[in-house]
């Protein structure tokens, strides 16, 4: 039986999201590197610093439209199952392989717990990610991939937004050990990739203002899954 294949290595934050889930459930998998600079019908001039375009339409190109119709990273193949969208892929992996490894990060056996996992997974997607990702793109990705300096206005606006989001996280994590409750879940794990890159920037000290968030992050980074894939996530100019 061919192992599960992920298209896109951990250096791509959305692929890292999937890869840490695969580590958590402990199955065999292989990673196929994607040469995103060699886009089939788009030249390097399309790798603009337009953050929205980069993320939404002209993101790292997966190449195979049948596998990933939006041409983005990651994609996953597991036998005849072909998936894209990192959060959907992650849930599939956790659902399919979690039981055998005694890992339950979705809590789908309990309606209330599953709902809280969903809530904070959505919060990451719609509040946390939009605030933190521009900082990661400006300070890590664009300097490394495009040789550009960070746009300080974008960074400052995002830091302000992120600060407000972290106030809410601080309040939440003062009441429960993890985001969905006193149990570790996908809602926590899904924060790993972008936070990991953020913590490599000079703005990492922002977390010092939020002691519960900082403790939660350190706990997240103590897991073998995040330690392993963090090692593969480096972007140097």
């Amino acid at each position: 039986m061919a192992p599960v294949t992920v298209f896109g290595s951990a250096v791509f934050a959305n692929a890292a999201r999937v890869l840490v889930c695969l580590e958590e459930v402990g199955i065999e998998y292989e990673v196929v590197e994607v040469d995103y600079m060699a886009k089939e019908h788009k030249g390097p001039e399309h790798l603009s610093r337009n953050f929205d375009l980069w993320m939404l339409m002209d993101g790292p190109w997966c190449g195979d439209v049948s596998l990933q119709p939006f041409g983005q990273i990651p994609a996953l193949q597991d036998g005849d199952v072909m998936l894209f969208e990192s959060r959907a892929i992650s849930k599939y992996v956790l659902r399919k392989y979690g039981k055998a490894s005694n890992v339950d990060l979705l809590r789908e056996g309990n309606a209330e717990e599953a709902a809280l996992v969903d809530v904070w997974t959505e919060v990451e997607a719609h509040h946390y990610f939009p605030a933190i990702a521009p900082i990661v793109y400006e300070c890590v990705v664009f300097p490394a991939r495009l040789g550009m300096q960070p746009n300080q206005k974008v960074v400052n606006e995002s830091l302000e937004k992120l600060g407000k989001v972290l106030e809410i996280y601080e309040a939440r994590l003062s009441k429960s050990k993890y985001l969905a409750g006193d149990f570790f879940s996908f809602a926590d794990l899904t924060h790993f990739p972008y936070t990991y890159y953020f913590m490599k920037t000079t703005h990492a000290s922002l977390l010092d203002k939020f002691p519960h968030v900082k403790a939660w992050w350190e706990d997240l980074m103590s897991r073998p899954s995040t330690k392993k894939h963090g090692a593969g996530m480096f972007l140097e100019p």
Partner: protein
Amino acid sequence: MAPMKLYGATLSWNVTRCVAALEEAGADYEIVPINFGTGEHKSPEHLARNPFGQVPALQDGDLVIFESRAICKYACRKNKPELLKEGDLKEAAIVDVWVEVEAHQYTSALSPILFEVLIKPMLGGTCDQKVVDENLEKLKKVLEVYEARLSKSKYLAGDYISLADLNHASVTLCLFATPYASVFDAYPHVKAWWSGLMARPSVQKVAALMKPSA
């Protein structure tokens, strides 16, 4: 058992996203309006439901949750799990994929258009045509993918309706309240899919709620 309470104004496409799912799932619920004009969304009572001070929020007994797509999933799991296909790993994953696509590809292109055309004038601002035009171009690229997908299956996740389709209802109804609905004309399978959705009582209920006189 008391009905679930959905907090929010029916003007909000995030609130009415939940209405489509709650209706389709046959859930027992009532809508409790939140008055933005009086700042009710920032009141301590509402912040306890949704710490971001936004709508919707849902209360079901002791459980209080927020984020429209989390609410929709909860409603489906509770009342009509076949909308999520959770009994089948492959089908459930494909539903999840297209639920993500609605959020990160479709609505992310459409909501800036809706904001500029429908919301900004209400707040005393003027529509930024540049934003509208840029996002229309993005939306067209997304619709190309949808057209290819819907040429192969009746609904987004397969030949069965799922939450992935329903999550599109509220924002698409809003699109049809703007001058830009004709963007669908170039995509016949998307148009047919939408006509099918519009015929469903759940979506008709959302359409009725969104009418200004309602």
